[in-house]
């Protein structure tokens, strides 16, 4: 009797595993969308938008923390002449500065602005993290945050790219929106003005730009899929 139990058990376990794995793979393959295809596309677009907005909010939060910490420890005196001459390297990107402006411009243009901003910050953030890690300017907490910030900017860029692709497949925006390899993006990324920026200015500029990105994404979502939580 006992001699039979072991092989039987093994076979049983094997069968269970097989069933389970097949179910898992089946689950991966199954999509949220069922029959109503059109509604489902818009629903998943709204879902994508929510995700990127959440991501951008978190990124802005981190940049805000870093900036305040930096100001607290490294710039105790508020009145500094250098602050007058602050100039972000993304100043050349024309961004809508108000609600009406943001609502007035085209969707494609707004999307382009977001993409440009994200592209412009890829390298500076990475170098900032390198300098922080190398010089031990911050404590460990700050160093972790700078890395996180850099990673999040990267992830957000990919996420927004996905959203753009989705929008293009749905026909919401035209295909003229440049991707990552668009000339504007490359130009912005190539600009080496950021190398000479001070850390404080860099943090200040990025905090502002991350807030812009978050707001633009929210406005874009409410323009394209307004019925899903606006």
């Amino acid at each position, binding site marked *: 009797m006992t001699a039979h139990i072991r092989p039987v058990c093994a076979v049983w376990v094997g069968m269970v595993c097989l069933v389970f794995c097949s179910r898992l793979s089946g689950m991966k393959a199954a999509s949220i969308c069922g029959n109503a295809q059109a509604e489902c596309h818009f629903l998943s677009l709204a879902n994508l938008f929510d995700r990127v907005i959440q991501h951008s909010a978190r990124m802005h939060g981190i940049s*805000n923390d870093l900036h305040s910490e930096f100001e607290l420890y490294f710039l105790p005196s508020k009145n500094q002449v250098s602050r007058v001459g*602050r100039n972000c390297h993304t*100043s050349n990107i024309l961004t809508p*500065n*108000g*609600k009406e402006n943001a609502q007035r411009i085209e969707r494609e243009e707004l999307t382009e602005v977001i993409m440009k901003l994200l592209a412009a910050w890829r390298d500076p953030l990475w170098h900032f993290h390198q300098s922080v890690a190398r010089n031990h300017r911050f404590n460990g907490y700050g160093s972790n945050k700078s890395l996180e910030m850099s990673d999040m900017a990267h992830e957000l860029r990919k996420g927004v790219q996905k959203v753009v692709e989705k929008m293009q497949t749905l026909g919401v925006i035209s295909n003229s929106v440049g991707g990552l390899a668009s000339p504007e993006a490359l130009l912005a990324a190539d600009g080496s003005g950021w190398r000479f920026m001070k850390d404080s200015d860099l943090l200040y500029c990025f905090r*502002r730009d991350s*807030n812009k990105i978050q*707001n633009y994404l929210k*406005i874009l979502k409410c323009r394209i899929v307004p019925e899903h939580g606006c």
Partner: protein
Amino acid sequence: MSLLAPSYLRDILKRCSSSETLRSNKQLFHSIEADLITLLLLLSVRLCASPPGKPVLIGCRSPEKETFTCWWEPGFNGGLPTRHRLFYEKEGSEEVHECPDYWSAGKNSCFFGKEQTSIWVEYSLTVVAFNALGNTSSDLFKIDDVMKIVKPYTPENVTVLVNDTANTPYLCVSWNHPPKVDTKSGWTTIKYELRVQKEDNKPEIFHPNKKNSFKVYNVDPGATYTVDMRCQLDQSSWSEWSTASVVKIPNYFQNEKPFWILVSIFSVIPLLATICIVVLKRKFVKQWLLPPVPGPKIRGVDVQLLKSGRAEDVINALIGNQNFPPAAAWMDQTEEYLLVSDSNDWLLTDPYISQKKKSLVIPAGVQLEIQCRTSAPAQSDCENAEVGKDGKVEPDHLAQTKESVLNVAAPSVSSGSKEAASGNAAGPTGYVDIQQHKGTQGAGPNAAQWDYSWVKEVNGETIFILKNEDAAAGLDVPGWEENTAADYSRVKEVNGDDVVLLQKHDSADSSCKKKEDRSAEWTNQKAKSRHGSDCGKGACLQIAGNGYVDSVPRFYVE
């Protein structure tokens, strides 16, 4: 006109030199006095007049992230009417702009409308105070980002309702978004904070997810709660707290007091009644609740008698009332049977038998069937003694039956009729076959547990034994075949007075036979036995009556 103008002095001198006398001198004196005072005043004013003091910009606020307002505090005005003007510069351009609206937001304020407001742009503000003597500028006031000065108004129409349906009361708080805030376009994300304070305890903070309503569940009846709210736009500064609403939860226990009083009254009355009943009928209740457990008791045995310890009484008590195992009873009976002879006197005078008349104990559930030979079918002369449950047969009844049987049987011994083939052969032996079931002949093959040979007839010293395979059709010999498998052997032949020839075990054959097919064949054993004993087959054992061969044979021969 200057006080010290020469013309003025000339006039004064003229007046002094005039001939208008004292009257005019008095007048002159008064006028001089007034003039002097006026002169002094004007001097003082002239000396204290100054350019205006430095105004101070207090702060700016944007309630909805689309416009903003700035306020300043004017300095000392220098005794002269002053005027304040605000100038600002935006980041990235050197152009200086002036405040577009000085009036909308009240005194000493500047309101920037939608067109003038740019988010994510640095503003540099200055307020300049102007008066007749000069102007003074305030310090530069910088707004890094309009996002930093965002502070919404309080939520509107905060109403609190006490909802006391069901058993759990809760507070239902509802509100509207602050005025002028655009929540639909996605430009701002508004977040609310609700504060609930119970009387003087520490306030509790909630963050509602819904836009307009919230339910507070953990409220205590009878307590007073203070509820207020504030909101926030996109991680900006929190607004002020709204005006507090004070609510009191009604106390349910008080409302339901009469109900509970009634309930308690109505439950107390049956309780008291139950107690009275229980107390009055104590014994009855006790008996019903805890019935007395009967002690062990042997029927017919007097416990007191046993306790007294007399040996005779004990023996009588115990033996007389006990259910002996059937074997012993049968043994006695077999003794009995073999003792019997033709003469009734002998039978009746047997002391043992007379003693036995007392009580014949037969196992329970057994039907004692005694059939008469003379009248086989009719049962009028016969007695069917049915044994009761306790296994005890009425002694009188049995004695009668026995006697009758014996009496009846005696004359017919020699007849050797076949009538007794049916049922039990009840000769003068008084052999009683105990069957475990009621029934007539041919009853089912239920177990008669006894392996007996049927004694058909006793002829003097000859005992006619019914052979198994020749069993009569009507004979009720249930279980013969089965029981041969037990320790007993069947008697094949009785050889003389003290020799019994046992049959070999051929139960297989016999079991196949149906009982109905059996035919009674009486064999005269005696005749055979004269020729010689045939002890070769099987064992030679001494007979013990009815074919039941016991290990300890007892054989009585008259």
